[in-house]
């Protein structure tokens, strides 16, 4: 299994991002449930894959270099963030890497067009927002990280997948967000709101979608690009910009790329998300394969089978 296949995951959210890019920055930065008042229908370019420097965790479409074109920035499991500068016509310029990675969340929103990385690093106790330059990096930056103030409540420690930032947050002021919605592993489909201006209270949502609602996108999925889920709809959805017409993206595992991007739209008269657009191809449920279970004694025994048993050496439960 080569390095490229192991460490460089493909970025299937590209087509969604392109569609979003076509809507313009304003729609992107509008809080959800957002309803752009007038907008052309999104047009999607040919779906393509983009690689990142490591397994992606969070991705945001932001105008990093403030040239009016949306860029894509992704945090990864490495210490490097990946950056793809948009060319404004649905394509991308050269890929850049930002060594300020290691954080989980990308903030975006009005006043935060930089797509600043935020979150906490493994082993640390504080939330950090990088306050360095928003310019594309051509050399290692001088990074100043500062703890958030007031410090988020313990209840949202480990929070990831911030899906939007309330534009009522004053530009350049702290706290950086007033309202955050997301989840963290084990409670991926629960939305929590944190009001940092009240000195760190976090409250659980009234409705709690069942865990298994994530099963189609596997259990550990979390949002990359997403919007406000309806209490009745546990899947993340994205408002296209047309009033009351969300389309949905189902994300894959946090350690892999999104498994599906659904550009189709659906609507209900009341504007709430309707039935899922673009359903997946169906196959009759069945057992796909079956193998004999055997315990393999261990690596140093080589391809050793237990006496009297046959079958492949690589059993499901081998250590």
């Amino acid at each position, binding site marked *: 299994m080569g390095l490229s296949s192991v*460490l460089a995951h493909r970025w299937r959210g590209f087509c969604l991002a392109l569609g979003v890019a076509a809507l313009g920055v304003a729609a992107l930065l509008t809080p959800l449930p957002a309803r752009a008042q007038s907008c052309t229908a999104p047009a999607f370019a040919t779906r393509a894959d983009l690689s990142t420097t490591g397994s992606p965790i969070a991705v945001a479409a932001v105008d990093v270099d403030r040239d009016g074109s949306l860029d894509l920035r992704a945090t990864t499991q490495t210490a490097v963030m990946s950056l793809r500068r948009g060319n404004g016509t649905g394509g991308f310029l050269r890929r850049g890497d930002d060594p300020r990675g*290691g954080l989980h969340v990308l903030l975006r929103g009005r006043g935060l067009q930089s797509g600043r990385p935020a979150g906490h690093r493994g082993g640390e106790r504080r939330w950090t927002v990088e306050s360095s330059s928003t310019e594309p990096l051509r050399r290692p930056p001088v990074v100043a990280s500062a703890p958030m103030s007031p410090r988020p409540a313990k209840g949202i420690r480990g929070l990831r997948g911030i899906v939007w930032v309330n534009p009522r947050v004053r530009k350049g002021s702290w706290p950086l967000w007033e309202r955050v919605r997301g989840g963290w592993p084990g409670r991926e489909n629960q939305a929590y709101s944190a009001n940092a201006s009240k000195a760190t209270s976090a409250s659980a949502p009234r409705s709690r979608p069942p865990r298994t609602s994530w099963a189609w996108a596997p259990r550990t999925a979390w949002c990359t690009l997403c919007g406000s889920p309806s209490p009745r709809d546990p899947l993340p959805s994205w408002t296209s910009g047309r009033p009351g017409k969300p389309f949905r993206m189902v994300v894959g595992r946090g350690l892999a790329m999104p498994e599906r991007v659904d550009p189709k739209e659906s609507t209900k008269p009341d504007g709430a998300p309707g039935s899922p657009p673009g359903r997946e191809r169906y196959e009759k449920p069945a057992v796909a394969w079956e193998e004999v*279970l055997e315990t393999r004694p261990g690596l140093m025994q080589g391809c050793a089978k237990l006496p009297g048993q046959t079958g492949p050496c690589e059993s499901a439960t081998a250590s």
Partner: protein
Amino acid sequence: MTDAGTAPGWLRLKGRALALAQPLSANLELTYRCNWRCVFCYNPRHHDLRGLRGPEWIAVLDDLRALGTLAVALTGGEALTHPDFLAIARAARERSFALRIFTNGSLVTEAMADALAALDPIGVEMSLHGASAETHDRTTGRPGSFDALLHGLERLQRRGLPLLLKTPLTWINEQELDAIIELAARLNVPHKLDATLTPRDDGDRSPLEYRASPEGVERMYGRLAERGRLPFTERAAGAVNCGLGRITVAIDPEGNVYPCLQWKRTSLGNVRQTPLRDLWRSSPERAEAARVALAANEALMGMGEALARFPFCPALAFQRTGDPLRPDETHTLQAETVQRIRDP
């Protein structure tokens, strides 16, 4: 580790797990405590002043579930000495993990055997250090340990649990090699031999003084060859040497997380400070370990047929040579021995 291919089956899914860095297998060292004192033990101490309690281990299990772990092994020290062992084991089964238990067998009373049977483990692995009480007890430092092991084994066997006996070959027991093999066969329990000893986790190399002689190692591989069980690894360019940093994770009694049980050079962090799932996903150390697994495959492929075809552990290499890509003389000798036996 070769390409898993695309045909439906376990190997393909394992390949996906490798690509996704999904830790399918977790080794939980529940405790440093042990009622034996094996002369070559890798544990640096035998107390748990800062050990994780049951609820903490269960929280770890929750995180492992979320990370996609399928199989959990409970080990130690002696796992059964942890006061919350059964609660942890039950929690593992309640979370649909496949459960392995590593134990010296001496604490398996009738009641414990009943409890273990109720857990439905996929394997209970015990250590056999000699064919006689004298040899076994000399290794464990505990008179009566041989008899206690056999009694525990019998209780488990009577209940139909899947068992495995493991014998580390040392200069103490190498003269009883054939008798040990015969004993395992007589007991009708699958048996594993291994000539690998490791330094203690704190770096103390004194366990290595108990290594078997080259002649003993050769005899061991001869016996394995007779049974068609010579170790063999097939390597392909671009493949990984092992699941290090990708599909294995280990946690020591104090909550330090490692990308595998042997890779103790750097931890990913401690679960008391950061949830395991965060440590695994965001750890540059894990990514580095994964790169080592990749680099090790490439390195071994370039070291000649004997080494290329012999299973290699970068963690052990690092402990012995300071370089995870460089096997030490002992490893090289074993690889050449196996090659000589395989292709006389």
